[in-house]
């Protein structure tokens, strides 16, 4: 991207939130170093953000949100309802069709082995997708969620292995903050 086109405010926001990769972050820092306009809006944003954080209204908003979260109770478990009753019925019907269809072959002395394999395969596939796939999905999704919480700073990073002495909390789970101040913005 040439210097003539400044990154959007969303891009800077993502950069400040640490969501961009190493290469993109380096490019943005280089841009800020060479672009007067972006550097100024980054400064405006940094000052404004500090003022915003100090505003009393903000605490009230957060308190309201937390009250709301508690009312709603724990979030519903994810991954539980991947397969509704309808899905189970559909897979059952499909498996039954394969079994009935290949039953014709059971009478044939040569191909009856194939028929047995088809029937057993239909049953096994149905059971696997009913039980194994949701479990795999759930464990993968949980891993992604843990990474996200770490980025948000609400979950400590896993301790280094092997654990050696007391582990300093926080600080280790985020890449070093870029030297350049935050993002550009056209507003204000």
């Amino acid at each position: 991207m040439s210097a003539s086109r400044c990154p959007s405010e969303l891009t800077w926001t993502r950069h400040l939130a640490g969501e961009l990769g190493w290469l993109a972050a380096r490019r943005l820092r280089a841009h800020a170093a060479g672009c007067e306009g972006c550097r100024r809006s980054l400064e405006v944003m940094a000052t404004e953000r500090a003022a915003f954080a100090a505003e009393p209204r903000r605490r009230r908003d957060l308190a309201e949100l937390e009250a709301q979260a508690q009312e709603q109770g724990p979030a519903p478990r994810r991954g539980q309802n991947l397969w509704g009753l309808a899905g189970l019925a559909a897979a059952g019907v499909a498996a039954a069709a394969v079994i009935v269809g290949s039953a014709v072959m059971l009478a044939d002395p040569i191909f009856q082995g194939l028929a047995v394999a088809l029937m057993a395969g239909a049953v096994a596939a149905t059971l696997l997708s009913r039980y194994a796939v949701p479990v795999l999905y759930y464990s993968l999704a949980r891993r992604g969620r843990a990474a996200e919480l770490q980025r948000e700073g609400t979950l400590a990073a896993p301790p280094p292995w092997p654990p050696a002495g007391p582990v300093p909390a926080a600080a280790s789970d985020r890449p070093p903050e870029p030297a350049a101040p935050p993002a550009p913005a056209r507003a204000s």
Partner: protein
Amino acid sequence: LTPAAIQGLYERHSYALFRRCRRLLLDADEAQDAMQEVFLKVLENPTQFLGRSSASTYLFGVATNLCLNRIRNRAARDGRWEASVADTIHARPPEPADAAEARQLAAAILREADPETAAMAVYHFVDGLTQGEIAELVGLSRVSVNRRLQAFRGAALRRGEGA
């Protein structure tokens, strides 16, 4: 979402979202309300949020849709919104829109009946996002984003000439 997770989200993203809302709504108080509404939406539907790779992008999209709803609901102040958006569009270097064209585009965003297209037009003409970024925000392919934006622009300018 535990209260601690909400706290983290709020601290990290509230300012950026407030800015985003203020830019669209042109009003700090209303922007504050809209920003809070974004977090309420996340609370109501945490599963949608949890699968995202980029929290900023997702929240930015939710904020844009909520703000556009608010803008549509307040017909009285539309003149001011249109003028300000036209200025923004006109001021962006890569978009060779002249002032009249920028006004037509701003008016067309307000008139647009389809909320998704209106949001895409805001991303492109007001925020200057790349088509890749827009595609990620609205969950369409880059090609369809491009096609929809061309169609939007064509319709906006045709209608402007007819008027």
